[in-house]
């Protein structure tokens, strides 16, 4: 070691400058909730975060946030950091359902209730609550509605199935839900392309473009998330296949999530069906579980959001339950 006192002082000054970061506000409220996301890669999670924060504030609670950027190991470490911060509850959106189990153990050891929001862990013996949208079921009813429209229209269909990140259980469930129905209807629909988007719009763009070049007669499209809608619109426009329902060359199109783009495309006639997760209901379930646990009650371990499919035909009747409609309405007064 060959630093003299002056150099040491300079280093101290530099480090102090780097360390003079804005400290997180100390919780003043009665309860502090950690909102632990893995990524904000779609409107669903961004809006979910907004609703979670708003409803926490309405309850008089403070929130701390973290994002792991789809790194489960980092997220498990972040849980430890939140436990150190003495939070009263954890809302947890993991990347991997198996690899999240150590995080539950960390929360259990500190006696902090942990609620898995929209992504349940793999079955395990630890204490947790899971709010679960039935992804496979919602995708099944969505694709079934799309197939019913195809049957009514008549003809044969060539389908492109877009998939999310297959390291994500939700993406796997949605893929399986879509294929469950398409496999039952092989006489009507032939799956000619599967595109792994990894929840990445660039990959979705390239994959769908390639699929359409290889199969220009694709006329049915299943999307795993409304986060891909803008890309799908762009690619179909470029390919000359962006037409409304009833117009010649319309591609039957289902979305998933129920975000503002999903609503916009349904209401303008470009999308036929959307699988909706009831985000407001899921937030209420999560916070209700915290209140029960703090009151000494034990809620059910698995709280299900059944979701629903919404189509152009049912849009008027069901849109109030579609979270994306409210986001859209706010932006389009």
């Amino acid at each position: 070691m060959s630093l003299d006192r002056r150099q040491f002082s300079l280093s101290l000054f530099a480090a102090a400058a780097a360390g003079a970061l804005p400290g997180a506000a100390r919780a003043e409220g009665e309860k502090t909730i950690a909102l632990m996301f893995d990524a904000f890669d779609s409107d669903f999670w961004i809006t979910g975060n907004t609703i979670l924060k708003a409803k926490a504030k309405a309850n008089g609670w403070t929130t701390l946030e973290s994002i792991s950027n789809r790194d489960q190991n980092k997220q498990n470490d972040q849980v430890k950091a939140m436990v150190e911060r003495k939070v009263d509850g954890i809302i947890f959106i993991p990347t991997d359902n198996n690899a999240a189990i150590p995080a539950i153990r960390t929360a259990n050891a500190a006696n902090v209730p942990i609620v898995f929001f929209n992504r349940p862990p793999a079955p395990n013996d630890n204490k947790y609550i899971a709010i679960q949208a039935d992804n496979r079921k919602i995708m099944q009813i969505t694709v079934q509605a799309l197939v019913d429209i195809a049957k009514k229209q008549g003809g044969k269909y060539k389908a492109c199935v877009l998939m999310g990140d297959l390291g994500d259980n939700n993406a796997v469930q949605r893929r399986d839900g879509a294929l469950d129905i398409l496999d039952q209807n092989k006489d009507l629909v032939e799956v000619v392309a599967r595109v792994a988007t990894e929840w990445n719009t660039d990959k979705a763009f390239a994959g769908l473009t390639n699929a359409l070049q290889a199969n220009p007669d694709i006329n049915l499209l299943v999307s795993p998330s409304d986060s891909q809608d803008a890309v799908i619109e762009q690619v179909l426009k470029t390919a000359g296949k962006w037409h409304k329902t009833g117009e010649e060359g319309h591609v039957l199109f289902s979305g998933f999530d129920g975000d503002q783009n999903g609503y916009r495309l349904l209401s303008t006639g470009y999308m036929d069906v959307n699988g909706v997760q009831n985000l407001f209901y899921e937030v209420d379930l999560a916070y209700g579980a915290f209140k029960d646990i703090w009151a000494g009650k034990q809620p059910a371990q698995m709280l299900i959001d059944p979701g629903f499919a919404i189509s152009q035909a049912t849009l008027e009747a069901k849109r109030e339950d579609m979270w994306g409609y409210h986001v859209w309405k706010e932006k389009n007064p």
Partner: protein
Amino acid sequence: MRRVLFSDYLVLCLTLLYVAAIWPFVPEILNPSNLTDIFLQVLPLFIAAIGLMLVLMVAQIDLSATSIMATASVVGASIMTSQDGYLAGSAWAPLAAVAAFLAVGLAIGALNGACTALFGMPSFLVTLTTMMFFSGAAIWYTAGHTSSGSSIGALPPAFLALGYGGVLGIPYAAIATAAIAVGVHLMLSRSLFGRWLFAVGLNPQAAAISGVPVRRVVIATFVLSGLLSAVAAIVYTGRLEAGTPILGQRILLDVIGAAVIGGVSLFGGSGKVSGVFFGVLFLSVVDNGLQLLGLSLSAVYAIKGGVILFAAVTDAVRHRVAARGG
């Protein structure tokens, strides 16, 4: 100024000063449980960074380290998982799985080394390609070995102990890491192969003329890098309790950054195990501090990226000063 630049302990000093600077905002950083967490976080990252250091020392790069981790993780897990694993329920399953982890690391490392040294391909291109290929292969392999498709869980307790278990209060991961660190340090400072590494990194042509088997040395560094990535994968998989195809997907910057911050030259020919340890420690402490502060992900990335950029610039300056005969 030059003495500061060339000090082996500069990064360690900065780590301590960083802790002192943020302690008033988040005193939790010095909680014993938090310090233990930091220590445990450092171990697998340190192992992977040592592997990368060896490759950097011969003026190459290995971008496939994290995809080696992912592939090894799912292959190993598929052998021992109680959910239809190849050796489900067998007492030999954990041992066979560990062997599979290491075999995957050695194989991919050998592939990287062979393409780089024998075919004269740029290691950046080779390892970028293998990174993409094996990342995809890991996801494909996982889909074929589990109903959920996202990861392979239900691993035997004997294997999970490698993540957090220990003997006499010392984690197995710490024992393995210490053994690797000491082994590599002795190899670099006391062995002929270590001297060959420095020689190849400093000037491969001169080394070849002097009788150093340059190609074999380059292949060996990639093989070692693959092997150490696989060892890191064992620790991570033990901790996560699952073989996951996206294991380590986001830590490549940390692995490279830790080595560079630790004084390993991107130009080859220099590197110390202790320096890499300080680099890993610094990044882990910075990360932990930023998590405790509750800063946004963008701020965390900006700060970490800035720190690594600063280290790379410092490395370039050091290199220039050394070239002038400093």
